[in-house]
């Protein structure tokens, strides 16, 4: 290894580099302090950016909580909407029904699709399917709502219905579940699959018992993300679910259903205090639901991580 000539001053990151450089370093000193100043400005800008992200979040949350809790009555959670007043029981029940329905549909279709992309698909062809799914996630929600109204509600004569809402919302969120499933399955080491193949397991059996299990936390997180998005959507539901003051029924067709985002969009600029209250409370409930889902997702990940850590101890 070549050695440097003796006496060469090595640059260091010491706090007083001008001493290391020796005499005649005015230019270098100025350049160094300019660089330091640029560095300080840069980190200042980054800190400002961080504040720029934190402040709106806190502002929005504080505003939602404040206006939602003002004039709070528990009756909002137990009575149904009547005109522009009343409560939100029908909307809460409707949102829960929609979310469960979407979770079921998307759980089946999305997980199955992700399994195919991760396990069975030959390497080249998967790109097209995967791309189609990812690009679908970029479609604007109003376009989905429009197409859903024109085809499902009107042309197929389903009317405002739970079925139309579920179809449109499922199409909207299925890419998230597909991607989450595929990513989780790919993160399972191939050794699992090879081992189960070597042991003679049929691949479906191996999939169910060996491969899916460690992938489950990621899949469930993806499902929760999908449900969170379904809860927060408005435009597609406006034109497929309609609105109803009544609690959800068992009818899949021709029976509109309530959901929590409707009062926010419809009542926020009405000149009635009761309407404003409903909009504010609905916004609060939506935020609480979103927070709940994030927390549940994190708990699941933490619990399963701890489980896999303890179970991977040698036995």
């Amino acid at each position, binding site marked *: 290894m070549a050695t440097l000539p003796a006496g060469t001053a090595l640059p260091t990151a010491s706090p007083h580099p001008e001493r290391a450089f020796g005499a005649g370093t005015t230019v270098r000193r100025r350049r160094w302090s300019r660089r330091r100043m640029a560095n300080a400005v840069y980190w200042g800008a980054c800190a400002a950016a961080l504040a720029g992200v934190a402040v709106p979040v806190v502002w929005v949350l504080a505003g939602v909580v404040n206006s939602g809790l003002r004039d709070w009555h528990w009756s909002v959670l137990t009575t149904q909407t009547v005109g522009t007043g009343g409560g939100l029981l029908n909307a809460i029940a409707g949102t829960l029904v929609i979310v469960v329905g979407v979770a079921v549909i998307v759980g089946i279709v999305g997980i199955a699709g992700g399994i195919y992309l991760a396990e069975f698909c030959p390497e080249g062809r998967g790109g097209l399917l995967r791309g189609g799914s990812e690009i679908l996630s970029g479609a604007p929600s*109003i376009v989905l709502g429009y197409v859903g109204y024109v085809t499902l509600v009107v042309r197929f004569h389903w009317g405002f219905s739970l079925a139309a809402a579920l179809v449109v919302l499922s199409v909207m969120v299925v890419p998230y579940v597909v991607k989450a499933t595929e990513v989780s399955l790919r993160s399972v080491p191939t050794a699992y699959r090879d081992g189960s193949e070597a042991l003679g397991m049929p691949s479906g059996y191996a999939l169910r018992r060996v491969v899916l299990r460690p992938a489950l936390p990621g899949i469930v997180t993806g499902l929760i993300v999908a449900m969170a998005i379904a809860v927060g959507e408005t435009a597609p539901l406006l034109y497929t679910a309609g609105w109803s003051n009544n609690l959800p029924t068992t009818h899949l067709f021709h029976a509109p259903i309530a959901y929590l985002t409707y009062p926010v969009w419809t009542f926020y600029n009405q000149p009635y205090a009761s309407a404003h209250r409903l909009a504010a409370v609905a916004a609060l409930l939506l935020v609480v639901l979103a927070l709940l889902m994030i927390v549940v997702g994190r708990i699941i990940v933490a619990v399963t991580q701890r489980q896999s850590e303890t179970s991977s101890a040698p036995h």
Partner: protein
Amino acid sequence: MTVPVESPGRPVPPAPGGQGPPGPRWDAAPGVIRPRHDTEGMVRWGTRLAALLPGAALVGLTVALLIEALPAIQGNGFGFFTRTTWDPGNFYNPPVVVNGVTRPDGASYGAFPLIVGTLASSAIAMAIAVPVAFGTAMIVVHKLPRRLSNTFGMLLEMLAGIPSVVFGLWAALTLGPFLAHHVSPFISRSLPDVPVLRYFKGPVGSGEGLLTSGLVLAVMVVPIIASTTRDLLRQVPRGTQEGAVALGMTDLEVVRTVSIPWVRTGVIGACVLGLGRALGETMAVAMASGTVLGTVPRNVYSTFGSMAGVIVSQLDSALTDATGFAVETLAYLGLVLLAMSLLANIGARLLVRRASTTALPVGRGI
């Protein structure tokens, strides 16, 4: 669980009793693993069908929109992109036939103000969101301790998880009036009357407008860019970073010479993805923009209409047009919007043509 250990090394005919897990097909050529159950083929086909569904839905969506929009494309032509008026015509007069398509008397649709409004609000949103998200990700990865960066991760998820109507509510009731009363008058008064800055001068209105919409869109787009940048920054090799520090570079220089080239493509991809999200955002912009038809926004405070906002607020009234022309025109508008969002999405993913599937988030960035 115990599995019978049985590896004869070559296929053998099944034992007459047929107990235990079935082995490889005894007549199979060695080295070829065929599906051993009929159900395996079913599983394969079932999952393949499921994997085809999203792509099929996308195609179906586009085709349905295209079919719906065809008469409007024929009737409106490409002047749709340059005309400024949005005139549904008179539904109460007998319909007329223009360009081979039946339409109400006097109907004339132009999407130019809507396209300008959509692009302008998205541009404002990206101009704010990209540096903010990048700077935030930087400071989270490099400066914050692990505990705080986890909290920040949750903050980002919260931001991505808040429904867009809630953002719209905040923009219409809180942010808009705040800007109109405290910020915009100050900006409008104190900026010099230079051609470029003239867009920031003018009557500030009551809070709904390009600036408010751009800001709320920025807030919604930040999670996509910030979370992707954060994940990518964490993957920058530490050795190279430490070597740069050892050479005496300041943090800024390390970032410029090491991190940015490494994450550049991914971040650009995430930005384009965010642009797609901003273009297609419906409810928040509908509530923050004032949804005005027919006027091109003049400055940053003027009310405008975005394509998605106009579809959502005009769909019901368009359905009263008995000739169907209004609804078809909205489908045409939706087609243009879909094309823009899909282009942004496809462009982003082509840009980041990695085999790794963790490159870009899907949709919202949660």
